[in-house]
């Protein structure tokens, strides 16, 4: 019996596999997000292995959801699936496909193309409903993780460089670890939520959904790829610093976490919407980086230094107060510039949803500024004069960090909201004639 089992096992290893994994789409005609100069006669999908054609395997929709594809055709080459198309007018089109892979799984995917028109990214294809409440929460958690990581690193390297006691050091790395792991995990969750919204598949079929056009064909997906790799590297550097008791790996970790935070700016409104430029992307990145440094620094001050390092409280508070002043200047200047850019009319503030969310964010920012001003103009001079530390100061710092986190929630909703359309510049009268 043993010999039979052994022989069966070896035979199974020796025989070529009918499928090493499920089929993968390797090429499509039209290509993913291709802009065509004329109407294509058909849509063709080429897989890396044989597939069985399902009824309505390829469905092509207009931007308004009208089905324009004909019957799906089998091909002598079982790796290819075609669907005929009629004459397509100018516009953007969404292709939703599915096929039965040789391993028995139904694989599915989505891509877009344009006929004399820009093809939208897969995340804006027909059927995708846009950011949901879950995505707002996940984006907020992402901002929080970024703040804990980047702000913690900034605080340790730019504000308080003196050695910490063992307990404070442990808590510092614990907070940093939560930030680093959170940035990776929440990033994956955010990507899967966005992909799920684009693919519009039930859970069982979503497991075999092709994510490649979203990971490689959208700004959001490319940012996800870069940021996941970047934050994995940052996690490794933070771990190395903890393991070796050296702070030098924290410098590249800070530089990388600030650099990879730009992924959000390069994939958001500041990069994709009308009127965006490298200046708007830079302003968005500066806004986010300064906010992360500020909120994360406050967390370190309130929850690491204050309870565990009584000797360093005064010095840490005074240094952070100076550091935060610079950060607030950056946050405000970049924020005002971006608000003016995205809301060209003042009444957009109360008539548009984007403006209303911005008003809530501005109210929270005003509260945080008042709180910070009280610390800066009342507490700081007293501490500089050598006055005893205020008993309620730790609670006040925790309160300010809580407001900072609430601002990040408003920012998360704002980032997922669509700014009002920019007014189209009218050509000069002479040209109109």
């Amino acid at each position, binding site marked *: 019996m043993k010999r039979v089992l052994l022989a069966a096992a070896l035979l199974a290893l020796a*025989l070529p596999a009918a499928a*090493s994994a499920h089929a993968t789409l390797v090429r499509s005609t039209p290509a993913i997000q291709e802009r065509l100069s004329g109407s294509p006669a058909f849509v063709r999908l080429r897989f890396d292995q044989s597939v069985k054609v399902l009824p309505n395997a390829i469905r092509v929709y207009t931007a308004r959801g009208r089905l324009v594809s004909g019957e799906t055709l089998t091909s002598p080459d079982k790796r290819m699936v075609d669907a005929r198309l009629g004459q397509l007018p100018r516009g953007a089109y969404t292709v939703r496909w599915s096929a039965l892979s040789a*391993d*028995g799984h139904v694989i599915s995917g989505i891509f877009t193309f344009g006929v004399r028109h820009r093809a939208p990214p897969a995340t804006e294809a027909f059927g995708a409903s846009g950011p949901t409440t879950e995505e707002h929460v996940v984006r907020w958690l992402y901002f929080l993780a970024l703040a804990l990581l980047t702000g913690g690193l900034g605080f340790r390297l730019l504000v308080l460089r003196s050695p910490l006691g063992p307990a404070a050091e442990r808590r510092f790395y614990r907070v940093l670890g939560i930030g680093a792991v959170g940035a990776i995990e929440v990033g994956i969750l955010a990507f*899967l939520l966005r992909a799920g919204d684009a693919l519009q598949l039930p859970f069982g079929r979503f497991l075999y959904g092709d994510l490649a056009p979203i990971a490689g064909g959208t700004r959001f997906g490319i940012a996800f790829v870069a940021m*996941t790799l970047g934050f994995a590297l940052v996690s490794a550097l933070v771990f190395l610093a903890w393991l070796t008791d050296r702070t030098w790996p924290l410098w590249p970790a800070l530089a990388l976490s600030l650099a990879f935070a730009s992924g959000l700016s390069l994939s958001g409104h500041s990069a994709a919407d009308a009127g965006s430029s490298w200046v708007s992307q830079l302003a968005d990145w500066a806004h986010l980086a300064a906010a992360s440094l500020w909120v994360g620094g406050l967390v370190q001050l309130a929850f690491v230094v204050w309870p565990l390092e009584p000797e360093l409280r005064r010095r840490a508070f005074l240094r952070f107060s100076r550091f935060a002043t610079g950060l607030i200047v950056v946050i405000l200047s970049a924020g005002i510039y971006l608000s003016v850019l995205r809301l060209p009319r003042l009444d957009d503030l109360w008539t548009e949803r984007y403006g209303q969310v911005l008003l809530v964010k501005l109210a929270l920012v005003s509260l945080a500024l008042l709180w910070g001003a009280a610390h800066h103009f009342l507490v700081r001079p007293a501490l500089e004069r050598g006055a005893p530390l205020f008993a309620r100061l730790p609670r006040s710092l925790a309160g300010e960090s809580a407001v900072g986190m609430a601002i990040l929630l408003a920012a998360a909703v704002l980032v997922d909201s669509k700014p009002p359309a920019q007014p189209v510049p009218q050509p000069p009268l002479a040209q109109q004639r």
Partner: protein
Amino acid sequence: MEPPAEHVHWLFATGFLLLGLCLLARALVGEEIWSRRPWRAYLWPALLFGLGVLMWPVMVFYTNSTIHMVAHGAWAQTMMLAGAAELGLVRGKLHHTAWRLAMPLALAVSGTALLIHEQNGWLFARAAFLHHALGWTALIGAIFPLVGAFRRRSPVWSSGFALTLVVISVLLYSDRDVAPVFGHLSPFAGEPHR
């Protein structure tokens, strides 16, 4: 631009083979002799941690299905966690015995992820067979570091753990239909799909 999947499998198979051989050498000579040169104590945990870091590019670039992406992410995280815990223990930064459970936990989670991501039966195809074999090897092999965490000097458990990794590496080498180990025997054996 992406390397073929089999090359990636062979890269990780080589990593697991080196890991297994290091651990086997340690089990044979004993921990005291193995740790006479301080760098040797860091060798296998650092290799495991590095393999975890290297798994992230696999996760983000091979996105042909959600389940594969999530499974690769699980392997990246468990390898980094287990490697980090062992490095922390070797360095003296971690002391609690519970950290020794990171390795069996990583094997168990990895094995479960392998079994979940392969939804066909054992004999459906060679890849399915290997995925089941890999999953159960990791799952059952987790017993060795689990018992070894409490019986540190027993060569049986440490050798068992090392051999588990060697078996995983052999299975990984065989995990593609173009693998040189157990490759195509006959062009008539089935329809090539690549």
